[in-house]
Structures are given as C-alpha cells and as structure tokens.
C-alpha cells in the first residue's frame, strides 16, 4: 500500500472573523522546541495590522453594546469549544514549548479555566470598579467602567497559550476589541485558538490574531490614531518597548508596559481588566 501523502500546513491570519493570507504574501517557518520544521505561518505586514485595526473598530460597536451577561456567555463558550480541542492544544504546547508529561495538559486546563474565570467577571466588573459618589448637591452621582476601544496586544513570547489567553480575555471581557500579535516563534497554539474563536460566537473582528514579528508591525500600530490602547506584555526588547511607548504618547493611548517575565500560573487579578476601561461619571438630578 502506498504511504499517505502528508498534508502540509501553511496557516493564515485571523482578521475580522476570516482567515486571510498576509497581504504581503510572506510566510515563515515555525519550528518546534528542538528546531525541527512544524508548519508555515503567515508573516503579517503593517498593512495586515491596519486591516486588523479596521476589523476591530468595525466590531467594537456591536461587541461593546452587547449585554455584559451575553459577553460572559461568549467567553464561556470559548472555554467550552477549547475543551473539545484539548488534545490538539496539548500536542501544540508540547511541540512548541517542549513541556513534558502532565505539564502540557496542566497548561491547557489553566488556559481554559482562565476563560471561565474572566467570563464570570463580565457582569461583575461594573459592581466592583464602579461606584456611587457622595456629592454636595441634589445629584445622584455614579461612576461606571466603559471599554477603552481598540486594544493592540503583544502576546507573551514564551507562554504561547496560557499567556495568550491571559492577555486576550481581560481585554475583551469588558467590551473592547483587540488585535493580538501571537508569540513569534511559537504561534501554533494561537492559530489553533483562532479556529476555536471562529466557531464560538465571538463577533468577527473582536479578536484578531496576527503572526509575525512585533518589531516590524508594532511601531505602525503604536502610532495608529485609531488604536486606543496598547498592551506591550510580550515585548522582550526594552529599546523597542520604549520606542512604542513614545509613539503611543502622540495620540494619548493607554499603555500596559512590557512584562516578559510575568508568571502566568499565578492566579489572575483584576489588574488587566482595569487597565483597559475608562471611567465614566454621570451626574443625575435628584428629586423632581
């Protein structure tokens, strides 16, 4: 019997709920932790970044207007679909990060649990971060958190799944739309995640995943006037981080600074959610 012909993989980007090739037509080789060929991934250009921001902006209206309860359900649904692909994620993590034994399943479980954890926050954020304020006048005065808008994030380079999920989930749970650049050398778990996102009720464009080199794409997105915030978590080069923060200052973006050494197995906190919301305060006349 003939040997089966291998199905070679050339993965694509995830922009606006679709899977386009890079506008530049470029790809790069993804290697496993031992340096053997795994697959080809699209190498995003600045124009792919621009298209992703357009897609994110387009989806922001519907996503931020969805009820908090509904957003929580959608995040929970992502966890559900990930659960069904658990084995694929475990294989991806094992080949990308070289983790052995029970570590790979543990990482995947932690990533799924993280979605569930953030899903629960969707309709509780306002209670915790919002408040009523005592004022000296006949007004009912209250402050509520609102999503910042379009957030561009650089996912952690080492923790290719758990780190990625820990970056995306807190951004979108409050109604932001995001463009995330996956780990450059370990993009496969992120690519598998896009296949999950495409089938889990997330509005197309709310999460856009680019693969490629942050040093090439990020300067354009950091200065992009239609981006409202940056999450530089996965930037490992301090000089690049500084350059991006300076570029972001021109349009007064919110910036979460680079944190290449963050331990993703630590329990999550509200910090990341709080980093990408704006507080709106309303004065409402009393009485009448």
């Amino acid at each position: 019997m003939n040997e089966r012909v291998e199905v070679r993989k050339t993965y694509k980007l995830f922009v606006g709920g679709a899977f386009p090739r890079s506008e530049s037509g470029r790809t790069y080789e993804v290697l496993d932790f031992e340096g053997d060929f795994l697959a080809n991934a699209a190498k995003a250009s600045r124009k792919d970044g621009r298209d992703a921001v357009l897609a994110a902006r387009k989806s922001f209206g519907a996503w931020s207007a969805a009820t908090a309860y509904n957003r929580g359900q959608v995040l929970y649904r992502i966890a559900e679909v990930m659960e069904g692909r658990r084995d694929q994620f475990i294989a991806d993590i094992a080949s990308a990060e070289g983790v052995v034994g029970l570590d790979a399943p543990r990482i995947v479980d932690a990533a799924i649990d993280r979605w569930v954890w953030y899903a629960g926050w969707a309709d509780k954020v306002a209670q915790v971060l919002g408040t009523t304020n005592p004022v000296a006048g006949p007004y009912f005065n209250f402050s509520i958190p609102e999503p910042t808008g379009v957030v561009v994030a650089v996912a952690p380079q080492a923790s290719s799944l758990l780190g990625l999920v820990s970056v995306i989930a807190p951004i979108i749970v409050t109604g932001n739309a995001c463009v995330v650049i996956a780990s450059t050398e370990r993009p496969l778990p992120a690519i598998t995640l896009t296949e999950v996102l495409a089938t889990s009720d997330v509005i197309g464009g709310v999460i856009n995943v680019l693969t490629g080199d942050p040093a090439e794409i990020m300067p354009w997105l950091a200065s992009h006037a239609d981006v409202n915030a940056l999450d530089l978590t996965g930037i490992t080069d301090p000089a690049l981080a500084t350059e991006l923060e300076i570029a972001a200052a021109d349009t007064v973006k919110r910036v979460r600074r680079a944190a290449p050494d963050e331990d993703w197995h630590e329990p999550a906190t509200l910090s990341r959610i709080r980093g990408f919301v704006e507080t709106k305060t309303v004065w409402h006349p009393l009485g009448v």
Partner: protein
Amino acid sequence: MTVTFPAALAGATTSAASLRQFLHGLPGVDEVGAAARAASLGTRSVKAASKSWAIDLAIRMVDLTTLEGMDSPGKVRAMCAKALRPDPTDPSAPPVAAVCVYGDLVAAARSVVGDSVHVAAVATAFPSGRASLAVKLLDTRDAVAAGADEIDMVIDRGAFLSGEYQRVFDEIVAVKEVCGGAHLKVILETGELRTLDNVRRASWLAMLAGADFIKTSTGKVVPAATPPVALVMLEAVRDFEALTGRLIGVKAAGGIRTSKDAIKYLVIVNETVGDRWLTPDLFRFGASTLLNDLLQQRQRMASGHYSGPDYVTID
C-alpha cells in the same frame, strides 16, 4: 439644440429608426474582456509621491453628496462647510469639486459655498425618473432658478430598456434646454441596464443628446459604479471625442468608499482616455464617505502614521 456632428454621426439623430440603427450598430462589448482589463488596471502599483498627488486630485474631483430623505438645510450647510475646507486641521487640503443635493436644498447649499464650489442638484424625479416630462422639466427649472450650476438628471430606464431610444433622447434634449448655462450630467443607472452593451448604447445616446457629463449611477441601486462600467463609459467618451472633438466628462458615483478604489479609477481614466481627463472638469466621484477616507490617507501621508475616523468629521 444645434450641435453639428460630422458625417459619421450626422444621420444618427434624424429619426427614431436611424437612432436605433446607430445604437444597435455600435460594436458589442466583450464583458469578460472589459472585466479583465479593468481588473488588470486595478493592480497597478502607485508609489508614494504619485499617491499623494492622486489623493489630492481625487479630493478635488469629489462631488460631496447627500441624497437622503432626512436631509435638512442644517445638514446641507454643514456638508458645504466641509466641502470648502475638508480638513480643518490642514489648510493645504483642497476643496472638493461640488456638492450634490436635492433640488429644494440648492439655496441652502449655495448660501454657504458661494462661488467657490459648484452646486449640483439631482432633478427629473430622481432617483427613479418616473414622472411626466412636464414634471421633470419643472423640477430642473426649479433647481436652476435656485442657483444650481450642475444638474444631475436620470434617464428613463424603463423607456431605454423597452427600446424607446427616441423618447429618452428627446427628454435629455428637453432637459438640456431648460438647464441654460448649467452643466448637465446624465445618470445612466448602469446597475439597471443589465449589460455593458446597454451601457455603451446609453452613453452614446446621452452624448448625442447633448450631455456634458455621463454618470454611472444614482447611488440608490446596487451595483452602482464598477470599474468595468467606468471603462466602457470612458471608451465611449474617447470614441466620441475622436469623432466630434468634444470632451465629455464622466462621473463615477456610488460604491466608491476607499482611496484605493478611487485611485484605481484614476488609473483607468488615465489609461483609457489619457491625462486630459484627469481634471475635475472632466472626471468626478459622486460620494459621501469616500472623502473621509481620502482625508485619512492624506493625514497618514503627512504625519507618517495611520489616521482614524476620530480625526475627520462625521457627516
């Protein structure tokens, strides 16, 4: 109307039969070929310096349009202010070619733009064209009296498709007459004409009847302007100029929303009729959202970083 045509065209407009014979004698359009040609022109790479020039040219070619039932004098005035000075943050941004409004809002538009920008009015029972000739003429007279110096008329597509070319021809001639000094743009509504053969025939019909401009669409029918349609119309304009020496303008309207699309059209114009047509006097874009995208691209070229919708006005 007393336009004299050379021998090749002289007989065409003498009777309904000769008009039909002429229009049906036009060579057929190769639809696949036209689509392929338009697509191949769309792939031209335009480098930064040319792009910056093309964006400014495209801005100068825009007929900034609002044709909604909810238009109000206030909205039209706001749009006119934008037409005069599209980018308040950058005085070097040129004004647009014209504003395009319904006939009853011409006065409101004129009061803001003065003589700096043309005011175009849609007339003749826009967008369907379903009214008697008397009503259409009154509609046109009304707009001209209110100060419109460009009239966008629609042809009667029902008559055209049922072969009553003479009736369509006579209507255009009659409207042209009441236009007086105002430029007449004839809207073919190519989305309803079904075939490129019909687009070519309608283009010739309009030009023979005295149109100053031929315009693709009302913007109310999908598909509106498409590159193959523009290509066929530009070819008709080119052939008409070769026979008569008269330069007819073309206006692509509806569905052009990005700078990239606009530049594709400019390439098609340049490659089909030449750079004489690369002027607001002979080529226009009918658009409302296109201008914002052009301005964002302009800001991007000036500042070196991508701009966003927060930096242009919302119409």
